[in-house]
């Protein structure tokens, strides 16, 4: 199949491992899914310390379930990426450890305090879910299939995130103030989740033409603002003055790009932002610390090859 034929046939769940796809498609899909998989893993590592810091047993249980889910989502996605035949799972995990693998801007920042957790658990997860729901219609079938399972689980994550936010927003004066502080700090990063406006997006055109992406950054950002700004207000949060967000006559939003720190954003996009390097290093050390487990598993598999069932997809 050449790129023209891919463009012509492109549609929801149209292509799978049995199709002979051009290198351009397989590389674009790999880049997109690897980014997504890396983000699941890095998000999980950002939230993991809060299993210990959570203020109650219920929160600890829910957070550990959530972190476990996110690691699982990463594994599902590496599998969907691996089936494109461009990179193996090991290669992608090594790239992530070595600071070459790219992931979501929001997971490059530090998160130190409990009252920051709804920023990831509600707003960033909500933004991700908005995007993921549209990816159920992506053209790479294994990716869409992974989305079915991921979207099934995410409803719990987003509602639990809102539940934490509600608790803080109806809590003590200090909790309300800290929640607002966290929101002021995180809000511009959350808006940048959707990247620059479409005319500046580098990879969009090809990914849209071949059906990998089904909605533009601008449309996704609009849908997010529509649903999540009223939520923030409901909990008494003041929307920061910047970035300025103006509603147009047609109900869509204009975000004033100059109000956002794009040099930081693009440094992050190159894995060249110090707190992000810390996150990458933290995960790499965790990967190295459990090297012996992988070795034991590999060793077991080599010795018993052909006699025991292999792991299913």
């Amino acid at each position, binding site marked *: 199949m050449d790129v023209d034929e891919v463009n012509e046939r492109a549609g929801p769940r149209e292509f799978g491992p049995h199709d002979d796809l051009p290198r351009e498609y397989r590389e674009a899909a790999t880049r997109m899914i690897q980014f997504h998989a890396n983000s699941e893993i890095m998000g999980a590592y950002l939230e993991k310390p809060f299993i210990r810091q959570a203020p109650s047993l219920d929160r600890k*249980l829910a957070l550990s379930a959530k972190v476990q889910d996110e690691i699982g989502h990463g594994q599902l996605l590496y599998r969907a990426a691996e089936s494109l035949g461009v990179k193996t799972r090991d290669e992608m995990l090594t790239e992530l450890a070595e600071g070459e693998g790219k992931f979501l801007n929001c997971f490059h920042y530090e998160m130190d305090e409990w009252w920051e957790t709804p920023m990831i658990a509600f707003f960033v997860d*909500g933004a991700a*879910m908005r995007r993921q729901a549209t990816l159920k219609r992506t053209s790479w079938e294994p990716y869409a299939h992974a989305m079915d399972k991921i979207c099934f689980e995410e*409803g*719990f994550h987003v509602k*639990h995130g809102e539940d934490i936010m509600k608790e803080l927003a109806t809590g003590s004066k200090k909790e309300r103030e800290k929640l607002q502080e966290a929101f002021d700090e995180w809000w511009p990063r959350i808006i940048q989740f959707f990247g620059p406006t479409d005319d500046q997006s580098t990879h969009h055109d090809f990914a849209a033409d071949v059906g990998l992406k089904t909605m533009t950054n601008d449309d996704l950002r609009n849908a997010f603002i529509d649903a999540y700004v009223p939520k923030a207000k409901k909990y008494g949060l003041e929307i920061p003055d910047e970035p300025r967000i103006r509603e147009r006559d047609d109900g869509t939003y204009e975000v004033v790009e100059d109000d956002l720190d794009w040099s930081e954003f693009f440094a992050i996009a190159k894995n060249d932002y110090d707190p992000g390097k810390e996150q990458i290093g933290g995960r790499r050390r965790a990967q190295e610390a459990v090297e012996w487990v992988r070795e034991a598993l590999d060793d077991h598999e080599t010795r018993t090859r052909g006699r025991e069932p292999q792991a299913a997809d």
Partner: protein
Amino acid sequence: MIWEVFRQEKTGEYHTHCGNVHAPDREMAKMFAQIQHGRRKPTNSLWVVPQEEVGEVDTEEARFGGTTDKSYRWAMTYQGVDADFAEEVAESQQEQEAAERQRGDD
């Protein structure tokens, strides 16, 4: 020969086990399955599978999860916040509710 029968009610749904039939071959099994399992309930498709082809692992060999109360991992638990503000959150919760109903049928 025993064939296990799985029925799908609507396109896109899972085939779920609904019983079995005795038949000498696959064609007869499909016919008996239609007669015995496809007549009285809404049916979109049936699978027949030779019983000896089904792999099983049970509580004698394995320790399954699912004995602890894990309600904290379901969207429905968080009743103080609504799911309807975003269609994708509402949809996720509906899928979880459907899965819970299905488990309840067992």
